[in-house]
């Protein structure tokens, strides 16, 4: 029996009067690739934003239910400033920023920050208080290697990250997401802005990474989920239609008829 890394229970999310997630519950296990598939507008991105609490930035979003990462409810994370001031041991994630570093996120469109390539990757470690040059150098090299970008940029680490090509920027984004040593990496349709060759390279990277971390892969390419994931969840209109291992989901006889139809391109 594998360990639960993330437990989601009865998660509801609404934007103003419109409910987009209708009370969903599922677990994500440690060191698996967990794919979420489903048509547009089915609440996939919103789900990820709940996990790392970037949903806080959406003005009219209302969340209920629990999301636990390593047993700690992320919705209850405060600042624990006074706890630390008093010398007590803070909880697993002492503040929401620490949670966001533990649950990394790669957005659909590549975003190179208007900084040098080096600073792009060193940004998160610096934000967490790391300043030693040697540590930063090591992290930058490791993450760029992991994201399969090192060889292309090692000669020009100090040129602007925004001047890289789209595919390179997406790998830079992944390197940046790895730089804060996440325990969970969420990828939100990472391949929509890049070419198939780069996509395959990144997929290889993910297969490597899965030895160390848990990966949640949101995609609307069902074939990508089939290639990469251990388990796949089919989300439709804010509800879980089916969640099972890939052998079941992508077989000829998943439990739900809709899954079969979606996976095989009959609807969606």
């Amino acid at each position: 029996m594998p360990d639960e890394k993330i437990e989601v229970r009865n998660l509801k999310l609404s934007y103003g009067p419109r409910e987009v997630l209708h009370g969903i519950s599922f677990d994500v296990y440690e060191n698996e690739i967990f794919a979420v598939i489903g048509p547009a507008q089915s609440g996939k991105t919103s789900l990820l934003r709940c996990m790392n609490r970037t949903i806080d930035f959406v003005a009219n979003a209302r969340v209920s239910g629990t999301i636990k990462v390593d047993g700690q409810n992320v919705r209850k994370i405060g600042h624990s400033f006074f706890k630390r001031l008093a010398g007590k041991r803070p909880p697993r994630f002492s503040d929401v920023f620490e949670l966001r570093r533990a649950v990394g996120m790669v957005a659909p469109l590549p975003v190179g920050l208007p900084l040098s390539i080096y600073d792009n990757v060193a940004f998160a470690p610096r934000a967490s208080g790391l300043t030693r040059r040697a540590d930063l150098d090591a992290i930058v090299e490791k993450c760029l290697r992991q994201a399969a970008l090192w060889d292309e940029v090692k000669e020009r680490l100090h040129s602007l990250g925004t001047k890289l090509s789209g595919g390179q920027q997406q790998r830079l984004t992944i390197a940046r997401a790895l730089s804060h040593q996440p325990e969970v990496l969420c990828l939100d349709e990472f391949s929509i802005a890049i070419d198939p060759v780069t996509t395959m390279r990144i997929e290889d990277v993910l297969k490597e990474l899965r030895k160390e971390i848990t990966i949640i892969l949101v995609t609307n390419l069902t074939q990508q989920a089939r290639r990469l994931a251990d388990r796949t969840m089919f989300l439709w209109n804010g509800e879980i239609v089916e969640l099972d291992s890939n052998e079941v989901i992508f077989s000829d006889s998943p439990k739900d008829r809709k899954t079969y139809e979606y996976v095989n391109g009959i609807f969606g």
Partner: protein
Amino acid sequence: MSSSPTRKQRQRPRRALWAVAGETLLEWIIRLSGISAIIFVLAIFVFVFREAAPVLTNEEFNLVEFFTSIAWYPTSAQNVRYGTLALIAGTFSVTALAMALAVPFGLGGAIYISEFCRPRTREVLKIVIELLAAVPSVVWGFIGLTVMSRLLVEYGGAPVGVNMLNGAIILALMAVPIIVSIGEDALKAVPDSFREAGIAMGASRWQLIYRVLLPAAKNGLLAAVLLGIGRAVGETMAVLMATGHAVQIPHGILDPIRTLTANVAAELGEAPAGSPHYRVLFMTGVLLFTITFVVNLTADFVIRGVKRK
């Protein structure tokens, strides 16, 4: 059990407490600065009103007379009268005349810049307009007093050079840059799809502007005009120097007039602090504050109407 040994102990770098505390402090200072704008607006009203308020109980002062009488004799020995109607009339007549001059040119300029000219010309024109907006009001007043008044006497047949028309021309020159830049923003905010649809239907550019763009941008253009009015009503030095100094209801555009703002600027220096005259001038300030407050709020609501669409 496959629980990895590192799971609970994995140590992540954590920011130092002083850094967190400093940041929190800074964020509160930023919040405070944000609220300062409200504080300042309230403070302006409170302090101006505080200086004005005692006159409300003065028996020589009558609030009805303040608004309806044209008799303004603040320093008279026997018959002190504080009627601002002539000043209000002066303010509104010069503003109206200025707008009659500025609105066609301002909107025309906005349309030309946004629809007709080439990008390079546009850049140049926008810079010129920005520079035009930067000319200090006292310089405009000086121009009114020296250049414009001479022109009006020589070519306009005016008995005195400093008069309502002079002030209105100067105010128009000051208001045009505002109308152009805000009007151009409003036109730019009309989606290109409107233009493309119009062109696809074979409309000429003029038809496009007249039938499509002006209706679509009308709120923004109205707001541009309102803000121009706001500036003209509140302008002090230029009208002080260019409109002459007669407290009277104007009968023609070549009559000299005095506005609310110019009146305060001209008389505040001579009114002893705390005297009824001094307080009445502050009361005029309250009136001016209220007028511009209403004009600006209206402009804002009109603009917001655009954004909601």
